[in-house]
């Protein structure tokens, strides 16, 4: 206003600017302190959280770890074929049969290391009792200084199937005791590209101590998984595993469907799912051509083809029990006694 009254006057301009400066410095300076502190207190580079929502996406493992001191118990189920010629209302389109059922227990030793135990029914490679160790070696940061998260998995299994003494061509012939063992090693390499899109590459190697005569013991597989959030709690998830090791026999060929090979023997697992997260649970409704739930089973032996209607519904229920000093594992919160002690200490 002073400027309007005395335009062009050098003193008035100075006057105006000094007052302005005085007022501004008080205001700007005042706001500045807390932002300055916040900036200096903020951690320089933070690891990303929740690249995926769960330790497993559909069939395969993700880079996510079981939380420290938490026991993650899950029951996974895959129903029978939905659209093969034999399926009708009498099988309720596969819902009356169980392709595979798996029970797993995973325990987080610390935030980068977890161990798992479990057993599953299996489809081709049946009745496995398995254990695994999972270790997170690299964590992606929010500023992409470290652009990737890498987790390694080593898994061993022993099959409990009854020996088929009279069938040398069977996978269950198992002449020696050590024929029952099989192993998988995987490296999960993931990037949370944006807050709604995560992508993972999974180079895997599967070794089975006993295979049929037209097969090889070792098999390289490359997996590609992705998760796209469609809303805050819902996401579309996708998985594909391409076997790399070629075989001269009729089965395990590259892209049999595209090349028009019928009865290719084994097909690449291609899985789609819809993920809904509610509080402590992640519900997945999935549609897959994959029946097995153990790596040694579904990576090496997936006899189901989408083109032949051999896809199925599946689900997984998981429950986490949080252990720790003074924590009630059923509710995951501090025990009443501990809370009261804390409160007494505070006041």
């Amino acid at each position, binding site marked *: 206003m002073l400027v309007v009254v005395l335009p062009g*006057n050098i*003193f*008035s301009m*100075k*006057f105006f600017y*000094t*007052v302005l*400066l*005085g*007022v501004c*410095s*008080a205001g700007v*300076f*005042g706001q500045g*302190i*807390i*932002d*300055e*502190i*916040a900036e*200096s*207190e*903020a951690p320089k580079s*933070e690891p990303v*959280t*929740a690249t995926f929502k769960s330790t497993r996406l559909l069939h395969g493992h993700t880079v996510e770890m079981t*939380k*420290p001191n*938490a026991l993650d118990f899950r029951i996974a189920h895959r129903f029978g074929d939905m659209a093969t010629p034999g399926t009708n209302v009498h099988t309720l389109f596969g819902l009356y049969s169980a392709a595979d059922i798996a029970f797993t227990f995973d325990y987080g030793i610390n935030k980068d290391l977890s161990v798992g135990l479990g057993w599953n029914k299996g489809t081709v490679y049946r009745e496995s009792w398995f254990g695994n160790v999972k270790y997170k070696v690299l964590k992606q940061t*929010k500023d992409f200084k470290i652009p990737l998260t890498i987790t390694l998995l080593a898994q061993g299994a022993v099959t409990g199937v009854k020996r088929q003494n009279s069938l040398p061509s069977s996978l269950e012939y198992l002449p020696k005791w050590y024929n029952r063992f099989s192993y998988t090693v995987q490296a999960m390499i993931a990037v949370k590209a944006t*807050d709604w899109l995560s992508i993972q590459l999974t180079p895997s190697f599967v070794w089975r101590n006993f295979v049929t005569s037209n097969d090889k013991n070792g098999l390289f597989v490359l997996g590609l998984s992705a998760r796209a959030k469609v809303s*805050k*709690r819902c996401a579309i998830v996708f998985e594909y595993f391409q076997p790399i090791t070629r075989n001269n026999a009729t089965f395990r060929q590259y892209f049999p469907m595209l090349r028009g090979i019928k009865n290719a023997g084994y097909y690449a697992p291609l899985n789609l799912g819809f993920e809904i*997260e*509610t*509080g*402590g649970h992640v519900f997945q409704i999935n549609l897959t051509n994959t029946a097995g739930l153990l790596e040694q089973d579904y990576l090496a032996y997936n006899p189901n083809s989408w083109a032949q209607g051999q896809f199925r519904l599946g689900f997984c229920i998981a429950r*986490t029990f*949080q252990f*720790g000093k003074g*924590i009630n594992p059923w*509710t*995951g*919160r*501090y025990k009443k006694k501990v809370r009261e002690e804390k409160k007494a200490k505070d006041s």
Partner: protein
Amino acid sequence: MKAFLSFVLSATALFCAAQDVAYSSTNGKVHFYSKTPLEDIEAITQKAIFVVYAGSRKVQAKIPMNTFQFSQKLMQEHFNENYVESDKFPYAIFNGTIEENIDLAKDGEYDITIKGTFDLHGVKQERVIKGKLTVKNGEPALGSAAFDVKLADHKIKIPKAVFLNIAEVIKIDLEFTLAKYIPKK
């Protein structure tokens, strides 16, 4: 004359700014509690930042949301990812002024009323918060307050499936110790 006036005014302004000494805390404690018949949820952070200006009686707070610690880490992840969205809104911010005309250089424990805006989850709300401020050795030293936050006020949605597990109104209590702010060079 004008030069003199300008000098006086600017000097006053600068003097006021200089007198407005800031007292800050970088390890303020903020605790929240959600109580329902089904589940009690609570979390605490010790990394809240508070600034109190002795001259203008302004109070500011910045609470880094991803520093809240839960007993259940999965719950902590959900809190950050789904409820407060701490990647998008990293801080809860409060900007207010103490209503009472108290002298923050005079020792004593004062009951204070702070009026200001509370910004949580990107939604600003005008709030009047009751608290306590202790002045020791002529400097504000301790502060505490307790208030309630209605989640719906800040557009924090609770999905229907967990509606009964999370209270609609969250109880918050906080306390902090203040020290004179020394800018880092």
